[in-house]
């Protein structure tokens, strides 16, 4: 019926497709432009004439990155941070979500815990008290300052709680009869069923941690301690290329074919790569997880 209708009025269809293709182009252009610049000849890139394909294709800026130990140092710090937070936060989230998914009559303190989680989510500590706290704990400059404060994600816990609650209650009752305790129930029954939502929160954590830059900026003391995003922020964004040059930065050593612009673009591209690699999974599980997590009783 709809196809018949569509045949009758074809012009709006074409317009719709054109609009959508324009939207697609707008979404992709900044990323493609950066990739194109990173592979371009530096003088063409400096002139601002590179659009969606490289002009004077070369790999010089990537070769230059390979020589930058600081870049890889920062990359490695980010990897460590992502792995540590993901592993620890995953366990903490799952463990906390299970008891909170119980009815009040089963677990009487449930509401108090829930209240604490929701309150701290809505009324977080300010920037300065958080900074002084990390300082008091003597964590400034330590990798743990980027890990430990990020372990409890109230929103993620609530997502998993909502998912656990959407599972049929009979599941719990039948396994109780078989004599399974809370731990067996969580690990043997609930976790295998929760894989989609667990994949979602894992990806949430990975992307969030990979992309975080601000804690690195305020909690770390020197550039060699920076995670990648903070390093990029300092190198690419905060430093004015002209000032950098005037202060005797090592741009002169880079050589004539690599301008700051192409090198910066290449750094941005390398920083994006991990997100682009897991993007197919991100796409699949984010949408699914958001729908699953929003299931209410």
């Amino acid at each position, binding site marked *: 019926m*709809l*196809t018949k209708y569509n045949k009758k*009025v074809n012009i*709006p*269809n074409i317009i719709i497709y054109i609009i*959508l293709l324009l*939207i*697609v182009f*707008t*979404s*992709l252009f*900044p*990323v493609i*432009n*950066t990739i194109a610049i990173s592979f371009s000849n530096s003088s063409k890139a400096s*002139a*601002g*004439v590179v*659009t969606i394909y490289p002009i004077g294709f070369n790999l010089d800026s990537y070769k230059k990155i390979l020589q930058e130990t600081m870049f890889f140092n920062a990359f490695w710090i980010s990897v460590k941070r992502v792995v540590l937070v993901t592993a620890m936060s995953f*366990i*903490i*989230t799952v*463990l*906390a979500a299970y*008891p909170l998914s119980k009815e009040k009559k*089963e677990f*009487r303190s*449930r509401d108090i815990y829930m209240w*604490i*989680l*929701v309150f701290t989510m*809505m*009324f*977080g*500590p*300010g920037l*300065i*008290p958080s900074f*002084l706290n990390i300082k008091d*704990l003597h964590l400034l400059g330590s990798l743990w300052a980027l890990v430990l404060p990020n372990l*409890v994600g109230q929103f993620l816990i609530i997502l998993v709680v909502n998912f656990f609650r959407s599972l049929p209650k009979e599941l719990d009752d039948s396994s109780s009869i078989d004599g399974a*305790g*809370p731990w067996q129930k969580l690990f043997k029954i609930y976790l295998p069923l929760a894989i989609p939502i667990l994949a979602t929160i894992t990806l949430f954590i990975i992307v969030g941690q*990979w*992309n*975080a*830059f*601000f804690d690195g900026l305020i909690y770390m003391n020197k550039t060699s301690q920076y995670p990648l*995003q903070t390093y*990029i*922020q300092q190198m690419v*964004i905060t430093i004015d290329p002209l000032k950098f040059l005037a202060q005797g930065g090592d741009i002169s050593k880079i050589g004539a074919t690599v301008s700051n612009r192409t090198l*910066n673009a290449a750094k*941005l591209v390398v*920083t*994006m790569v991990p*997100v682009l690699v897991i993007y197919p999974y991100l*796409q699949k599980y984010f949408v699914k997880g*958001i729908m699953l997590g929003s299931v*209410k009783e």
Partner: protein
Amino acid sequence: MHNKLKSIHYHIMLLPAMIFLVIFTIKPLLGSVLAFKKLNPVKGIWGSEWVGLYNFKVIFDIPNIDRILYNTVFIAVMKIIAQLIIPLAFALILNEVRKLWFKRFVQTVVYLPYFLSWVILAGIFRDIFAMDGVINKISGTIFGTEPVMFLGSNLVFPFLMVGTETWKNFGFNAIIYLAALTNISPNLYEACDIDGGNRWKQLLHITMPGIKITIVLLATLSLQSVLNAGFEQILNFYNPLVYESGDILDTYIYRMGLQNNQFEMATALGLVKSAVGFILILIAQKLAGKFAGYRIF
């Protein structure tokens, strides 16, 4: 008795989350009392002397406080409006597409920017909007315009923030609308077809009423971000030239607190912001519950 035994296991499961929450969230939250003290660097927050409301009085003496407040609310509200309308318009257009593969392709592309950090995106956009960037180059070639310093213009800066954030998030924000659209029964469209209703009539009488509740929900919930103009974004984009139009509460707190070491005043300002933000959240949740039957858990 059985329940009590189980409760102990539940408490143990919640213990790791609570430990980290106490050390890294609740303790600094209590540390906000610094707003009522004068920091003694040796004795720390807890041993410092009380000064009553002195630090709050200092806030009113900030020369540009009204400007900062205005910037915050202006940028935040503009973002709220744009991020309600653009994703909706996009979802409605996409919903008209019958070819599934094309729909998927568009979705896959437009979700991407959501997962990229502001550090990367600011790096990309600062290059694109630079004086010698590709936008100025193209408009110069086609329209013969003089290069514009977009990121140094107080006229352009707030809109650039609204635009880039909407660009980043619109695809992802459309997910909720798209889900609501799929819940509308196809029978309604068929009935409308038989009655001779055209596409426009369908939109007006079936689609819009079908997702009205979703729109209301998102609109009420967005109230809670009236003071959040986008700290990570603006921190990566702004510079002293655009403080007049781009300096917001969060960036000001950061500069005063951690760069000028005015810990007490920055804490006080942060506390005021958190408190007002908390009230806004409560109101938004209440309204969302009333008008759209929403609850967080």
